[in-house]
């Protein structure tokens, strides 16, 4: 019953990316911050996989761990990150820099501060091509311009000469996307790509990501804290809480039948248009301190289900991932016996 995913999938379905029991810790003076402590999920070719969770639950760190860009004092202490079957954790610095921007690229939350203020955006875009592809100068320029055009930047030739401060956030994010797409990567990681943008621009950028996925058969790992974005964009979802994955399912199933009490809380907290709620249904309490994690389930202190069902194990022992239904996993003692009681 416990986490059977490894092994029971036929080889033909090898996922593009598989993260297995990843742990990334920060060794600070105040103690070890277990920013990521047991994250597992897989991303299949061509899908948009959502990773969702509250602020600080380790979503960005997961992305940085995949790219092997965790800064000191952080360190991946255990786990595997299999990309096309090869473990990225074991790759050398040189191998990783050959991979980044070419096979896996990433776009970030703050597009304007993610571009270097002292270089023209055109040159920053061309740099990716320069590193990973052997092109003549004119070809490089041409390709960069066509990339800008593809992400919907009007008058791309002129925009090549702009500095980041001469662009709006939405435009800058399009440049970031163009940079991410320049070498046609297999995997695009989008870490809250629209959080810093206006609502209308948000929709445009999300549409752009989806249409690029469709046109290039790319795989997207979409990180967000917005359940609305998850519902609209993703095929499958991984829910994270305090550095661990707590639920995994297809998007449809997750919204129809959330299993983990935390996921249920998240879904209940989505404001519904046109409906005035008595109170916004947020989850009471706060995320536990990542230095002194409670011994049992990390969500136990905030969990209503625990009290309702009188579960005692929760405060003592951390639950594993249970495959409650086919391809629907939850890390909760409620489903120890197979989930029928839920």
């Amino acid at each position, binding site marked *: 019953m416990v986490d059977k995913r490894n092994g029971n999938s036929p080889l033909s379905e090898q996922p593009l990316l598989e993260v297995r029991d990843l742990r990334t810790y920060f060794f600070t003076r105040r103690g070890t911050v277990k920013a990521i402590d047991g994250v597992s999920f897989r991303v299949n070719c061509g899908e948009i996989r959502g990773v969702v969770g509250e602020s600080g639950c380790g979503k960005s760190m997961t992305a940085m761990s995949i790219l092997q860009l965790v800064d000191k004092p952080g360190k991946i202490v255990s786990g595997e990150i299999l990309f096309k079957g090869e473990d990225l954790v074991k790759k050398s610095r040189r191998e990783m*820099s050959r991979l980044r921007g070419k096979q896996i690229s990433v776009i970030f939350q703050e597009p304007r*501060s*993610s571009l270097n203020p002292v270089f023209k955006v055109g040159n920053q875009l061309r740099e990716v091509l320069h590193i990973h592809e052997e092109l003549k100068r004119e070809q490089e320029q041409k390709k960069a311009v066509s990339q800008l055009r593809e992400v919907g930047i009007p008058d791309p030739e002129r925009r090549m000469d702009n*500095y980041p401060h001469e662009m709006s956030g939405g435009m800058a994010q399009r440049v970031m996307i163009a940079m991410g797409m320049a070498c046609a990567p297999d995997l695009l990681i989008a870490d809250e790509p629209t959080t810093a943008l206006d609502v209308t621009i948000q929709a445009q950028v999300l549409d752009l990501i989806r249409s690029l996925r469709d046109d290039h058969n790319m795989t997207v790992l979409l990180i967000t804290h917005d359940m609305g974005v998850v519902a609209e964009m993703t095929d499958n979802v991984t829910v994270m809480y305090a550095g661990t994955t707590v639920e995994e399912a297809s998007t449809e199933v997750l919204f129809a039948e959330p299993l983990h009490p935390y996921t249920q809380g998240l879904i209940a907290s989505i404001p519904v248009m046109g409906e005035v709620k008595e109170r916004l249904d947020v989850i009471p309490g706060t995320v536990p301190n990542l230095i002194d994690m409670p011994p049992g389930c990390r969500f136990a202190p905030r969990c209503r289900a625990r009290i309702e069902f009188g579960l005692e194990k929760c405060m003592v022992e951390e639950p594993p991932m249970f495959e409650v239904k086919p391809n629907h996993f939850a890390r909760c003692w409620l489903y120890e016996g197979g989930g029928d009681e839920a």
Partner: protein
Amino acid sequence: MAGYLARRLTLAVPVLLGILFVTFALARLLPGDPCRSALGERATEQICEAFNERYGLNESIPEQFRIYLRDVLSGDLGESIKFGRPVTELMVERLPVTVELTFFAMLFAVLIGIPMGLVSAYYHNSSVDVLTMITANIGVSMPVFWLGLMLSYLFGVAFRDTVLWLPPSGRLSAGISIEPFYAAWGMSVNPDALTLPGFIANINTLNALLVQDWNGLGDALRHMILPAMALGTIPMSIIARMTRSSLLEVLGLNYVRTARAKGVRETKVVLKHAFRNALLPVVTIIGLSLGSLLSGAVLTETVFGLSGVGRILYDSITGRDYTVVQGFTLIIAVIFVFINLVVDTLYAYLDPRIRLE
């Protein structure tokens, strides 16, 4: 960029006017009677009357300022009371010494300080970092005159008759002289007037370079090493610390993360993406350090027996030779305005956001 520079230049005009006013006022505010301090306590009323007449000190203050302005604008900075020579002449003689010294001190500071900071930041928290920063912290707290004396003792005395020996004083060895470049090029120049060729010819290293006198160049450079090190150590240490902290800050910024995510190699991330941004505060520090170099130059010039601006300013202030004080203060201030302009230009070159303002 051109528009930005034009604006900066226009802004410099009122600053220069202000400087003219302040230097004028400062000289009048110096305590003590200029006549008596120049000619001695026993100068008679009559002699002082003639003295004041000659130097225009009998006029009303506004009138004096008007005359001063007119003279300055026509390139006449008056005559030294003590030396009886035009101040401009003294400038052509003294300024090159200090300019040369400051230049080499700054060159030393930048060429050593920036790499120190870079290495320190790149190997953050390693033993290399700790060692570099200990060196820098010692360097900052080193008194200039003490360091100067130690260096001249070490290299000039202790290492005498070894290959490490360096001349502990003066600008050129006895018996070595470098032909002024204007003479070598057959230009006719009055060596005493305030002219650019005269000024340039007095910068020994530059002059030697122009006439391709390698022997002279080598000798002039050897004389420069110790004073430049003595004067450059403090700014070197400041620059090293600033480069390190600035770089460390920039290395944590989002666009550096982007560069890494693009697949840029780490050395290039540091040298290309982070370094240029990190240089901005360093450039400011370099500009500011040039100011403190000048006060350091007084001490350095004394220790190493160089007769530059520092020496003459000190002598003139104590001797109430205020045409000289006035003239040199003015030229130093003008140099400052110029340095600031260069710093601003460099800033605009490094950071496109500034060109906009």
